[in-house]
């Protein structure tokens, strides 16, 4: 009998490769940015801005701080609640467009079709790449830019703003939906195939059903994002809570800012709680059917079907909310201009033509124009954007990854994974709950605090250079990744973790070895998704003249040079598309 050991297992796997790559990339970014975090001029008082800002936290305003308002205008509280309602209304409208569209596009952007039928392969590949590219374009352009483009040919009706919000959201939903669907265990859908079911049936009846908790979690999170992104709607003259925060902040009305932030955070938490309840329901077995189904007649059987009250109530409420949002209140599709939409579109489109071509009508002149832009600003902007986005993401994901398990309700709990750990003293049980709650609140606060405020405060503390911007992006993304990861942990199959925990593994071990190996792919899915958003969010980097794409885009748009603005946007789209392909490949390989 041969007892010698077989040759050793290969040391590198895709998963380890990814981790190694991650470390290398982080190191490179740190090296590029340099590690002198503080670059303040002498005699700066670094904490002054932060103290001013945070000391107002205890005194949220209840009256307008603006001294120039006429007598008899509505009270501050009225205005803010009005703003919140407006925000909710338009967030619902935007989401009610984005979710169906995202589902349909996500359906087509999924890899699962590629294996469907042999002779359709080229067609399916073409469809796959095309849909992925379209969704990339949709989401790699910031809402603010979409609003700018749409304003130019749809007019300043609220509907325009909602569409502008819905488009990048659709792109993101499509990407994340498709990838969540790809990450599900294929056994059940494969079985449906083998029973002769079509790919669509296999998708709807198996994959979709299994993925439902994840899809829901993500949709609820997106609704929250829609509420937070509402400042964009201000472009159309809608005074939303996001715009209120921005303006109060710019005027140094910090007490107002805090009232608005509190209101926003509470709203976000409400949706969070609703999402949690729904997910709890989806994970828990249905209530027992009434009566004995063994002996019942069929009519009784139908009666005996178990019913959940919470789920239908939630669905109907959300649908009702969307219907009300569409129908009640100001007219959505107002149009006031004397120009027809087509005329506006043409005149705006003309401005997108490269300048030399616009004057000479000769497209040969586009090429030197392009290469000139690339040489003067493009190359450096692209480089800087990638460095900033990557550095921010590496920091965010390192901290997020360390903390996310302790924010997951199934782990931060006296009985991790439902495996009891001795008679839990009330104090211990309570402490775990508090820890989980605090971390989740930390995530909520980190992502509800607008990035530009964080960046501004950090510039005060660290000085005006790249790091404050990187850290601001990192803090914001930390809050988002932490939440998304914690929920992946909650939604994941717990069987192996339960087994390990019941064999004496600690909480950490049960997580690391039971849950992490199989959920790894779903974790990195969100890293790439956030990286893309970092590239997009670099518009906030316009605060400093560091030549990132964000700075270039905002510079060109404020000088109304839409042709070169589109050029820099295009560069961003390409980066995001590349990252999308990397993400798809990596996840496929590290199954």
């Amino acid at each position, binding site marked *: *009998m041969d007892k010698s050991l077989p040759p050793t297992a290969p040391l590198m796997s895709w998963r380890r490769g990814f981790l190694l790559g991650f470390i290398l990339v982080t190191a490179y970014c740190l090296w590029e940015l340099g590690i002198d975090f503080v670059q303040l001029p002498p005699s700066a008082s670094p904490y002054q801005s932060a103290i001013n800002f945070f000391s107002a936290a205890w005194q949220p305003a209840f009256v307008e701080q603006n001294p120039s308002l006429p007598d008899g205008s509505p009270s501050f509280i009225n205005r803010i609640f009005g703003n919140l309602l407006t925000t909710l209304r338009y967030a619902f409208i935007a989401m009610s467009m984005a979710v169906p569209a995202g589902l349909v596009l996500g359906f087509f952007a999924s890899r699962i079709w590629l294996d469907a*039928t042999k*002779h*359709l392969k080229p067609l399916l590949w073409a469809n796959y790449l095309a849909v992925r590219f379209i969704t990339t374009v949709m989401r790699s352009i910031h809402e603010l830019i979409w609003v700018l483009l749409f304003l130019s040919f749809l007019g300043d009706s609220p509907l325009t703003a909602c569409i502008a919000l819905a488009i990048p959201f659709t792109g993101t939903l499509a990407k994340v939906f498709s990838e969540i669907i790809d990450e599900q265990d294929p*056994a*059940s859908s*494969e*079985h*449906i*195939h*083998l*029973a*002769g*079911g*079509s790919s*669509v*049936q*296999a998708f*709807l*009846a*198996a994959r979709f*059903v*299994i993925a*439902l*908790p994840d899809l829901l979690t993500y949709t609820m999170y997106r609704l929250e994002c829609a509420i937070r992104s509402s400042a964009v709607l201000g472009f159309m003259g809608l005074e939303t809570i996001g715009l209120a925060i921005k303006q109060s902040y710019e005027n140094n009305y910090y007490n107002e800012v805090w009232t608005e932030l509190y209101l926003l955070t509470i709203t976000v938490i409400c949706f969070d709680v609703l999402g949690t309840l729904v997910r709890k329901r*989806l994970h828990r*077995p*249905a209530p*027992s*059917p009434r009566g*004995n*189904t*063994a002996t019942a007649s*069929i009519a009784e*059987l*139908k009666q*005996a*079907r*178990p019913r959940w009250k919470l789920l239908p109530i939630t669905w109907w409420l959300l649908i009702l909310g969307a219907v009300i949002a569409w129908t009640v209140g100001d007219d959505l599709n107002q149009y006031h201009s004397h120009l027809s939409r087509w005329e506006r579109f043409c005149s705006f489109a003309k401005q997108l033509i490269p300048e030399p071509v616009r004057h000479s009508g000769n497209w040969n002149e586009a090429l030197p124009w392009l290469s000139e832009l690339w040489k003067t600003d493009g190359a450096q902007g692209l480089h800087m954007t990638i460095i900033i986005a990557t550095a921010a993401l590496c920091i965010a994901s390192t901290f997020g990854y360390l903390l996310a398990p302790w924010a997951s309700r199934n782990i931060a709990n006296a009985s991790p994974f439902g495996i009891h750990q001795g008679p839990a003293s009330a104090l211990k049980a309570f402490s775990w709950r508090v820890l989980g709650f605090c971390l989740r609140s930390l995530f909520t606060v980190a992502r509800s605090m607008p990035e530009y405020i964080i960046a501004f405060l950090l510039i005060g503390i660290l000085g005006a250079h790249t790091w404050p911007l990187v850290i601001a992006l990192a803090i914001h993304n930390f809050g988002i990744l932490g939440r998304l990861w914690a929920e992946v942990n909650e939604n994941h199959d717990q069987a192996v973790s339960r087994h390990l925990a019941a064999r004496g593994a600690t909480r950490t071990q049960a997580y690391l070895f039971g849950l992490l190996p199989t959920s790894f792919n779903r974790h990195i899915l969100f890293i790439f998704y956030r990286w893309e958003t970092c590239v997009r969010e670099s518009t906030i980097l316009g605060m400093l003249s560091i030549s990132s794409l964000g700075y270039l885009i905002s510079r060109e748009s404020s000088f109304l040079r839409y042709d070169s603005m589109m050029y820099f946007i295009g560069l961003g789209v390409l980066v995001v598309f590349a990252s999308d392909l990397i993400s798809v490949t990596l996840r496929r390989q590290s199954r």
Partner: protein
Amino acid sequence: MLELDSISLHFGQHPALTGVGLSIAAGEQIALIGPSGSGKSSLLKLIATEYQASSGSLSMGGLNPDTIDAKALKKWRQSISYIPQHLALIPNLNVAQNILLGQVGQQSTLATLGNLVRPNQVQLERVHTLLHEVGIPEKLYHRADTLSGGQLQRVAIARALYQKSSIILADEPVSAVDPSRAHALLECLTQVATEHQVTLICSLHNLDYAKRFFSNMIGMREGRVSYQGSSEHFSIRDFEDLYSLQHG
């Protein structure tokens, strides 16, 4: 008529099946036996068209699933029920919904969705009857992930029967149930097969069951067919040839 002609199946360099040639008449009922890892599941998956042979060819009624068009392939698949060893049930659907999905191949997408949301009377009654047959009528509306090992297996059997096909491939369908229940289930399967002229290929580790319920047996070892013949003639010698341990 199911024909396998010197079929091989490789995973990387690892051969799971080597030169398998078989011909199985319509309506035949065969037990598939052999040591663990000998390729029984691989063979069944191949017939179920989950895997494609690395070489050799498979055909049924003259049609080869590797060459026919999508429509014919769909037909082929509809005509085969398959109970996989890992069951492939959907944990967060209830038992009734899981069983209703047995007919997904025969239905339009819309009808499938409708069934999942609100099954009609007739279908529900059939599902319930099947559940009675496999002995868990009380689990009709329970979620699949709350069932015991043997109960899950029975849901998978019910789903296969619900499909109404001309071939049933069953991969260890009774490994997780007790002897009485196993007898009842195998009786049910063979009876359905006899009544409706269904070809039944059933992999089994329990030789008693194989001998009792099946007149013919195919024995596999290391990816090859090493015994083929009637159950009665399966001797101790044959047993040893087939099962003698390779390691340990």
